[in-house]
């Protein structure tokens, strides 16, 4: 092991519980032991995943957040005796790894509840909500400190909790903690003064207008959180450690408005000055550990940083707050293990909290210990498989129901949280397989086939593997995408996959002989709109980003999807002046892309004053100009180039047949998740 990592592998204490190392797996919705939002039960898939993480060497695992009262069925978490009976032997098995496990308990979402259209309809109608309440009481699920606007649905306010409801909930936190302790759980974490969840809505002055003992002064606003820890100690014992998930700063400018990492702004939520006082109150109340980051649902990209956020984005704030308390502190948010080790060694931090890297590589801790860091598959923070809650202007949460039921899967690692569905089974009949196209889909196919015992050969028309992902990863802030490509190169080379570069295959007949199966992974080509006058003057993303052959300062994007907005942001960072023209009513209005990612891009466009024309299109492109048609009329825009951002169309080669398969964008335009998962779907059956 690189000795610089050694500080990560030293023990530390939370209360009286010794954690074997400084690596904390942050809670991720879906990786739960008791089910995600449905009636609580012992969740076998979650249990399998968490045990594997402990076996890899994570010191403290925090399973996905568990709401103290089930959203579906409304049962209290302490009421399912069978669940705790099954938990006990599981924890005995778990403790053989030497790792520790704290359950994260939450008081619900409040105004942050990611309501879908049908949930919003229930919440807006008292009678419907009452009728549905034995199954789901959306008004209760959205209840908050005060009547505040929902993050997801327009014209939907939370109803305030009654004092009786708060006190009932506080008691159940204690009762649940007691049962968890009896079942062998090492501690609990309260998902509280964090990320704009329910208890945070009590803590933030602009979200809490109460005049009773739970509103007003900072002490009153933190009363809910302090009563919880006191009740837990009362029922489960003073020595039962209670961690607190804590956002140091809200980084929020207003309802649904986040602040850029480099922005000076007036804080709408909790600022550093209030935070310094809050942590002292919370420590004095009995919390034994602070698991910190920044953000709220309104500034979601701080708590769930996409690739546009800087590495270690919350570290400075977390280290600052640590000066005001004596209990250990962990920091989450694009944390680099080496940087964390440095900070721990210097005494500025106690632990590193890592979330989604645990989904993408189930052996990353072992690989660090064994000095094989270059073998770690990096998380690219796409949130496509694990966390694709999505929203655009005027919509509620657009996430597909199948994804809502199965969070915390991984776009790049299909077996994560679905190990019975995606698995490597060695083949009994090894075959020679030709893979046409060496993009991510082709490389993933080759790796899966090789692991199963087949003999894949990749035919790549260029002198480099990567395909369309070479363009997608070319932007300055896509460092992890570049690392992912390098990871593929290393794995392909290590696996001994034969790659024939500079070999374009246009006719499958030429390679049919000599191969048992053919997989076509030829990707897509840009969509065209010849009806736009001068469309042939547009440039492609490849020319702009990879070849860097588009010159000039003012670049107009035809289409406001994710590719356009990312490229526009890249130009902004380079000091250029992009303009985005989008036909729809919002930027990046895609069902599969997480709000943490899309809201960053939208907020960034606004902050950098990028001209964005919605409900608009381009009607003519000429030399040095284009005509933009908006609802208010058309105008001539001087520009240096127009980028074709209206999308892509599949570009398969050859005809489909029994032994010819297709993977990736050449089937249908998707994202890395659809490419990688289909690669597995096809290659598991060859």
């Amino acid at each position, binding site marked *: 092991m690189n000795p610089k990592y050694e500080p990560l592998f030293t023990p530390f204490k939370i209360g009286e519980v010794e954690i074997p190392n400084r690596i904390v797996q942050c809670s991720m919705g879906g990786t739960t032991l008791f089910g995600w939002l*449905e009636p*609580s039960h012992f969740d076998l898939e979650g249990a399998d995943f968490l045990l594997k993480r402990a076996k890899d060497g994570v010191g403290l695992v925090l399973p996905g957040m568990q709401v103290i009262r089930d959203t579906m069925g409304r049962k209290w978490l302490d009421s*399912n005796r069978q669940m705790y009976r099954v938990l006990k032997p599981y924890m005995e098995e778990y403790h053989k790894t030497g790792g520790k496990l704290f359950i994260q308990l939450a008081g619900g979402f409040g105004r942050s509840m990611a309501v879908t259209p049908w949930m919003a309809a229930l919440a807006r109608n008292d009678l419907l909500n009452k009728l549905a309440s034995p199954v789901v009481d959306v008004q209760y699920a959205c209840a908050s400190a005060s009547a505040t606007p929902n993050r997801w649905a327009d014209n939907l306010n939370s109803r305030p909790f009654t004092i009786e409801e708060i006190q009932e909930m506080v008691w159940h936190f204690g009762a649940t903690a007691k049962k968890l302790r009896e079942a062998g759980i090492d501690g609990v974490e309260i998902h509280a003064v964090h990320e704009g969840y329910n208890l945070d809505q009590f803590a933030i002055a602009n979200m809490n207008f109460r005049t009773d003992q739970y509103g007003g002064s900072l002490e009153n606003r933190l009363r809910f959180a302090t009563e919880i820890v006191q009740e837990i100690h009362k029922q489960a014992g003073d020595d039962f450690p209670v961690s607190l998930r804590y956002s140091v700063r809200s980084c929020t400018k207003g309802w649904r408005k986040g602040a850029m990492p480099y922005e000076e702004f007036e804080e709408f939520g909790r600022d550093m000055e209030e935070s310094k006082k809050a942590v002292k109150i919370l420590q004095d109340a009995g919390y034994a550990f602070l698991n910190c980051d920044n953000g709220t649902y309104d500034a979601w990209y701080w708590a769930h940083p996409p690739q546009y956020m800087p590495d270690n984005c919350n570290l400075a704030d977390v280290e600052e707050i640590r000066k005001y308390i004596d209990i250990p502190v962990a920091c989450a948010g694009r944390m680099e293990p080496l940087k964390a080790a440095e900070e721990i060694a210097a005494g500025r931090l106690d632990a590193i909290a890592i979330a989604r890297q645990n989904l993408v590589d189930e052996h990353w801790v072992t690989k660090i210990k064994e000095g094989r860091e270059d073998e770690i598959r990096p998380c690219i923070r796409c949130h496509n498989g694990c966390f694709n809650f999505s929203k655009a202007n005027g919509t509620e949460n657009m996430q597909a129901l199948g994804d809502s039921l199965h969070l915390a899967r991984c776009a790049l690692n299909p077996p994560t949280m679905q190990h019975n569905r995606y698995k490597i089974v060695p083949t009994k009949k090894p075959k020679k397989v030709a893979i046409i196209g060496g993009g991510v889909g082709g490389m993933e196919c080759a790796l899966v086939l090789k692991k199963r015992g087949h003999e894949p050969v990749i035919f790549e028309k260029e002198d480099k593997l990567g395909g369309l992902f070479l363009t997608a990863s070319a932007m300055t802030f896509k460092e992890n995408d570049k690392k992912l490509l390098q990871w593929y190169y290393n794995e392909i080379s290590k696996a001994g996959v034969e790659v024939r570069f500079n070999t374009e295959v246009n006719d499958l007949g030429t390679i049919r002989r000599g191969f048992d199966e053919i997989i076509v992974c030829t990707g897509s080509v840009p969509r065209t709109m010849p009806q736009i006058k001068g469309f042939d003057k547009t440039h492609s993303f490849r020319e702009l980003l990879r070849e860097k052959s588009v010159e000039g300062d003012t670049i107009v994007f035809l289409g406001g999807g994710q590719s356009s907005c990312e490229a526009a942001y890249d130009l902004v960072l380079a000091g250029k002046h992009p303009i985005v023209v989008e036909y729809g009513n919002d930027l990046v209005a895609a069902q599969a892309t997480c709000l943490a990612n899309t809201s960053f891009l939208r907020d960034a466009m606004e902050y950098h004053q990028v001209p964005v024309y919605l409900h608009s299109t381009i009607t003519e492109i000429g030399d040095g100009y284009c005509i933009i048609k908006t609802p208010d009329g058309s105008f001539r825009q001087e520009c240096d180039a127009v980028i074709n951002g209206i999308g892509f169309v599949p570009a398969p080669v050859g005809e489909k047949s029994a032994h010819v398969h297709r993977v990736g964008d050449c089937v249908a335009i998707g994202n890395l998740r659809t490419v990688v998962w289909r690669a597995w779907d096809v290659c598991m059956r060859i």
Partner: protein
Amino acid sequence: MKKLKKLLVLACLCCAGYGLGMWVKTDKARDTLFSLLGEDLYLAIQDKVYLLGDLLMWPIDFVRALLP
């Protein structure tokens, strides 16, 4: 007696639904559907098949989880 029969039919339907829900998620079901429907069609509807499995199992899981 009639009510009992109705309850029995309902229970049988629920069990059959639960069984079907569990089955569609197995390797055997996947391979069967894959060979019956072909690669393209099966992979196009695969997520919906899994969702159907979830939804068929959901009522019984819901009731089971509500039991103490």
